């Protein structure tokens, strides 16, 4: 039996029923990794011994009946979340040998729930990118066709889930980095409300936008992971002290009485017709499930990319000042003054896209430009947030495409940063407004590449969002499909 193909909820039942042991499951997934990893290239660091040891401990707990909700389930982790004693590179040469002395809070929670950590997966350097090609250690591939990008920045997370190289993964999303690769790889990916999941130990890119969340094989697994990772954390003063519901309970109700808004501005010029067809079919499924569909408007969405590419680089230029070759990370040994250590270590350690964003951010914050760029962008950010507030007065959730096109070929857009930035136009607003968004598989392109449908909800309305996603998934009935040629 191919255990690696199953979901968390299927496997938890089998583990509880002693039909399979955690060690058998972990071995099966490790064998799967051995078989496909040279084509998918999802992992930066793999820890088979650690995983098997952890699986043995899980079996002991399962025997005693004390196993947590994720006990014995093998996970991959985006390499931007700190793992105690396990190398965390952020896809960057500057952190190539960085071994964190502590776990991120989300990792503490996964471990406490019994998760088995397999290793760390690939990503765009410091989560800056939409293709994972900005990884210093080579890009992961799309399991549906390895000539294609898997999306980014949580590309390794999405690819490892789609290729069954793990059962589920934890990623992060600053402008679409969970939802976009989930869409391109045909898996479920949720960016929670800002403040729902602790950012402690999540290596910061843009602190007012970053949020960690699940990438899973179906919506039920997504809810199960949210149950574990959500909640207030004294170590993250921006996490919110609000009760965590059992997200799984919310799923199975129908959509009668649910109002689904279709934002006109998300069906932009340049939207691929195959994407539009698949998404419209998805919206029809929501209607069949009982939802009322209404057209709505988010008039300022067209400005979201411009806002984001000031706000995010500004925050990044400040956050990345910490990589100075002094306390951790790469130091250029040939430098003999402190200033040269800073400059040489950073210039060697950072890749082109990271440097580009540091330059944009430093420019936007530099003397004389602050009002024109950062302040202006922060004001338009307010307008974008108010648009959402207005539509959520009448709608429960919004349905739309996740990305304007299906995945493209590796290296196709690597030399044109602005056109890449524009491909984030349907996901960025959720981060600017802090609202949750999910990508659920809703179809395939004629080339056989997956297409996702995005559902967004108001702050802390993950239950509504997951319920709509679950109803869509039940009706589409494609979440169980896997790449054939892998």
């Amino acid at each position, binding site marked *: 039996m191919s255990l690696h193909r199953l979901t968390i909820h299927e496997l938890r039942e089998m583990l509880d029923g002693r039909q399979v042991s955690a060690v058998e499951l972990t071995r099966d997934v490790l064998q799967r990794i051995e078989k496909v990893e040279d084509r998918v290239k999802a992992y930066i660091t793999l820890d088979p011994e650690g995983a098997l040891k952890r699986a043995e401990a899980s079996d002991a707990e399962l025997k005693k009946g004390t196993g947590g909700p994720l006990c014995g389930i093998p996970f991959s982790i985006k390499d931007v979340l700190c793992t105690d004693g396990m190398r965390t590179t952020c896809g960057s040469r500057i952190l190539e040998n960085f071994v964190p002395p502590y776990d991120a809070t989300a990792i503490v929670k996964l471990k406490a729930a019994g998760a088995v950590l397999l290793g760390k997966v690939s990503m765009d350097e410091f989560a800056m990118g939409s293709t994972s090609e900005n990884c210093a250690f080579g890009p992961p591939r799309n399991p549906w066709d390895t000539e294609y990008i898997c999306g980014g920045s949580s590309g390794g997370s999405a690819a490892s889930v789609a290729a069954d190289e793990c059962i589920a993964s934890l990623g992060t999303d600053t402008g679409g980095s969970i939802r976009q690769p989930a869409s391109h790889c045909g898996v479920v990916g949720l960016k929670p409300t*800002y403040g729902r999941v602790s950012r402690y130990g999540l290596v910061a890119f843009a602190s007012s936008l970053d949020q960690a969340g699940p990438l899973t094989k179906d919506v039920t697994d997504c809810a199960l992971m949210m149950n574990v990772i959500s909640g207030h954390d004294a170590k993250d003063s921006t996490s919110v002290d609000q009760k965590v519901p059992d997200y799984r309970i919310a799923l199975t109700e129908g959509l009668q009485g649910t109002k689904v808004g279709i934002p006109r501005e998300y069906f932009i010029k340049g939207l691929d017709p195959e994407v539009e067809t698949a998404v419209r079919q998805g919206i029809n499924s929501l209607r069949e499930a009982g939802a009322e569909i209404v057209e709505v408007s988010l008039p300022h969405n067209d400005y979201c990319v411009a806002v984001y*590419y000031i706000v995010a680089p500004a925050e990044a*230029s400040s956050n990345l000042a910490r990589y100075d070759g*002094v306390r951790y990370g790469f130091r250029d040994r040939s430098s*003999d003054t402190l*200033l040269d250590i800073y400059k040489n270590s950073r210039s060697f350690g950072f890749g082109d896209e990271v440097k580009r964003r540091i330059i*944009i951010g430093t*420019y936007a914050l530099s003397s004389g430009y602050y009002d024109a760029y950062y302040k202006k962008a922060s*004001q*338009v950010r307010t307008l974008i947030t108010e648009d959402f507030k207005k539509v959520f007065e009448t709608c429960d959730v919004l349905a739309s495409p996740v990305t304007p096109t299906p995945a493209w070929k590796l290296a196709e857009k690597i030399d044109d940063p602005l056109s890449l930035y524009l491909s984030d136009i349907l996901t960025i607003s959720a981060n600017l407004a802090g609202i949750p968004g999910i990508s659920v598989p809703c179809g395939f392109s004629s080339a056989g590449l997956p297409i996702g449908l995005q559902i967004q909800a108001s702050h802390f309305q993950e239950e509504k969002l997951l319920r709509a996603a679950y109803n869509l998934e039940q009706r589409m009935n494609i979440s169980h499909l896997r790449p054939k040629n892998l």
Partner: protein
Amino acid sequence: MKITPQEISHVADLARLHMSREELEAMALQLDDILNYVAKLNELDTESVTPTTHAISITNAFREDVVKPSLPRDKALANGPKQNGEAFVVPRVI
């Protein structure tokens, strides 16, 4: 507006980055592209709009001012490229 390689050189210096002549020229063109695009924000009148600094409204997050366990020194120093068991070591500054 046209960004010059000299301006990029100044910004790179602020950001503690070295850039070659070619890198400065390429970056000037790319930044110019991006800022031209960003200029569309000026289509909007934001005179009376309060800037967003935080996506959700939270007030100050206070906690009791008590000492809690933190990383022991050896662990905090362990990733330092150069350290002497007590502190990170850098070339003499003064």
